[in-house]
């Protein structure tokens, strides 16, 4: 369900703006998600990728406006360049 996925991505993106959440996610991602009422079910792949990121990488992603809220919005086939 795209709607459910978008809603959870939006909640996760908002939570990641908070340093405390990022620290909590790094130490116990499942508890951090539960505490923010984020359902990992529809966004399992995104969660798994974020679990592979380092603290520096997670901080960087959180610093870039809209980068996570746009996640999954576009088809990869459109991303092409010289």
């Amino acid at each position, binding site marked *: 369900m795209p709607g459910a996925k978008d809603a959870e991505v939006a909640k996760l993106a908002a939570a990641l703006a908070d340093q405390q959440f990022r620290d909590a996610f790094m130490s116990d991602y499942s508890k951090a998600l539960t505490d923010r009422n984020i359902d990992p079910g529809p966004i399992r792949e995104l969660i798994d*990728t974020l679990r592979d990121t380092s603290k520096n*990488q997670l901080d*960087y*992603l959180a610093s870039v406006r809209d*980068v996570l809220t*746009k996640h999954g919005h576009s088809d990869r086939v*459109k991303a*092409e*360049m010289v």
Partner: protein
Amino acid sequence: MVPESSQQIGILDRSRPARPVSARLRRKIDLVTSGFAEACARVFLHPRIRELWPEYLVTQHAIIRTTVPLMEAGRDRARALAAADPVAAGVEEYLDRHIVEETNHDEWLLNDLEAIGVSRDRALARVPSPTVAALTGSQYYWVLHYHPVGLLGYFAFMEGFPPQPELIEGLKERTGYPEEAFRTFRLHGELDPGHKEELDRTIDALPLTSEHEDVLGLSAMSTGVLVTSSLEEVAGAIAGS
């Protein structure tokens, strides 16, 4: 002491680990791909694409002309570290080989620009945006002041989205420009998939620490974000987007 047979094995001859670093890196790149794809669409589907296409090529030239100098800087730094650093030794081997493959691509782009009436002098005189300077300049920082492995993150993004023939045909039709205006675009569509595979195998063969993987991911993701910004600048250069 390392057995002689091991010493003779090149970086690409080593077996790949079960859960490759390259797969994790590609998934991190995916995190910044949606915004990049939207920016691509803003440029390639622009209602005034004929006017915008020279802007796009000039910006791409400003980026691509740094490819070989960046690789040379990365190779030289890696070479200086290689005796005591097996990751640097692998980076040097990769860059040394890849420099040859990337040589003169900036010249191809200048030829493409001439095919649509933009002289070399005009293209070279254009002042690049701070975004382009940040995109390529940050790589010099990783190379010179941290570790040259960061440069592999840059190329993981830059060669990860080769243009498909359908896109090129569509652009030819909508711009009305001749085939000669798309030679670099078409050649990268043919070459980049092979380069991507070779780069992934190189990354997976390197004995990376968590710090190396950290900088690799930061370099790749920030490249994606800055390339996206440069495309948004191109799309915004002409009203109608």
